[in-house]
């Protein structure tokens, strides 16, 4: 692509990342959450494919993306299991004054970021997972026309042999 597109793509890294992170982190206060935020972040990868082409796309380490995907999902599962003291998926962090555990004062307010317990943490996990998974989908469709998702070649690129 032309230098204009390339430069604009680089400049757009900041606003797109910020918007994506905003949507993920404010998932428990405003519309959005992990899935839309992760999809917004993954659109950055697609934008870079368009701007910089195949040579750039080949440099992406799919192993890291697979790791991010699995890590996000495992984190989500782990958070669900951590509530087992009372019940599965129990929100044990809410109102605990620790991580995201602020008690909300009674009455109308504009929303507190430091609240929600495990919901924002789960949003972050889902955001990571969706970002990594959609990036993998984009890489596979862009580089390999979707042929090798389930064949043997793919292991040479990413994971362990």
């Amino acid at each position, binding site marked *: 692509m032309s230098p204009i597109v390339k430069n604009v793509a680089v400049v757009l890294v900041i606003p797109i990342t910020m918007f994506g992170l905003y949507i993920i982190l404010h998932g428990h206060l405003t519309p959005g959450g992990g899935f839309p935020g992760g999809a917004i972040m993954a659109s950055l990868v697609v934008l870079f494919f368009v701007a910089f082409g195949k040579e750039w796309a080949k440099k992406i380490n799919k192993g890291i993306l697979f790791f991010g995907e699995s890590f996000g999902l495992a984190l989500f*599962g*782990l958070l*669900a299991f951590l509530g087992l003291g009372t*019940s*599965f998926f*129990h*929100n044990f962090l809410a109102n605990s004054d620790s991580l995201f555990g602020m008690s909300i004062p009674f009455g109308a307010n504009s929303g507190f970021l430091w609240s929600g317990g495990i919901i924002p943490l789960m949003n972050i996990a889902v955001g990571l997972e969706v970002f990594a998974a959609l990036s993998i989908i984009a890489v596979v469709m862009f580089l390999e026309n979707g042929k090798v998702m*389930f*064949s043997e070649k793919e*292991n040479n690129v990413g994971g362990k042999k």
Partner: protein
Amino acid sequence: MILENAPALAIGIPLFAAFAVFFFGKLGKRAMKVWVVAGLLAAEVFIIWLAMDALSGISHFYAVGAQVPGIISQAGFPVRVVLVVDAVSALVALVAMSLCLLAGLFSLRFFEKKEGGEKFYSLLLLLAAGITGLSFTGDFFTMFVFLEVISISSAGLIVFFREGEGFEAGFKYLVLLAIGALFLLFGVGIFYGKYGLLNIGAIASLVGVNASFIDFTAVALIASALLLKCGSFPVHMWKPDVYQKASGIVSAVLVASGLVGIYALFRVLFLMLANTPLSAMVGWVIAILGVFSIFVGVTMALKQTSLKRLVGYAAVAETGFVLLAFGTGLAAVTSMDIFSFRAVIGGMFQLVNDGLDLGLLFLLIAAVGFVTKKKRIGEISGLAHKSPVLAVLFLIGMFAISGMPPFNGFASKIIIYESVYMASPVFSIVGILGSVMLLAIFVKVFVAIFLGPPYKGKVEVLPKSMLLVMCIFAFFILLLGLFPKQAIEGVFLPAAKALINSQAYIGGIL
């Protein structure tokens, strides 16, 4: 504390195990396989415990994420996702999870030399979690979610290691199931719009009082989605395609997901229509669909040349028997007589037998492919000389599926024939004819593969783990066939009672 959370753990453990397979894959093949088997075994243990509890009369209701998981409706109506484990859902989950576990054990040596095992096991565990979730869910929206989980993970499994045609079958499955899931979602949306509730039991209690046309529309939409899932007559076309193209192991797991689809269909229908005049009509429609499934499945199986496709059509026929039995029971649900009740028991029995017989046959096909290394079954003949064990196991599976005494298929089908005959002799006769034709078809297959001049090609030794898995299937087939009375009294009678007793279900929720 752990046992209190057993319903959630039975879904949560395979789900978490599926996500973490990737990390164990990094540690090596052995660690990954140990992790997969441990995950499936742990879920199986919890389900066995739940099933033993449920069959002895103690149902478990579990509100996910609640302060006290046992309290479902705090303000008079349920707000949280509710898991319901009564006799019938526990039994179905037990059968389906056992199929997943056995197929997983079977696959340990099967994929030894092939790459990409971590994705296969990840999808298998995800499918196991979806199957358990669909059988335990007491909530329409969760039902939709687990249906999607099942369809996406099974589509991934279908295309695994296959190129070209396998993709076509997987894509067909995915598109059809997605359309079905949209029907379900539309039906759920109607209920949510009318009642502001998603819980099946709570909606059923309201539908029982003031049923209107819009409720029946929603029930019809949901029922058609689930009929698509279990592959009944007018929408059976994906089943032979998928079973033919997928690996035998994957087909065995897909049988499990089909069983859970049938269960979900009848759970919804028995709950929603129990007190309404429409139950008779819907029951007969389902029974007629079942009869057509038997007829179409058997006649189409007759002309197949590919063994897997043939068993796929036999699976359509087997589904038809369950639909026929449950449909007859549903038709008489308002005034349950002894024959209709026996039909429900027979259907419950047949549901379990479906899983055992079809699971054994699909794993046998995979084993035959493994020992001969041939892609096409048609190139194989006279295998009984080289591996008599496989021949004996195939005979057991074949007699069981076609309803010959003393195997389990006979025990369940005789109940269905007897009880359905009282309601409609024609349906019963079609069922008997279908069963006889199934036997003829499988005798043909048996002769082609196992008899004749000795097989000339190289035959590999069957790994012990595969043999053990198939012997477990054969053991349960014989056990249910030889002691049907004890099995019915201990297992299928409480399950059938739980299925038709909508008041106990609703009472547990509210």
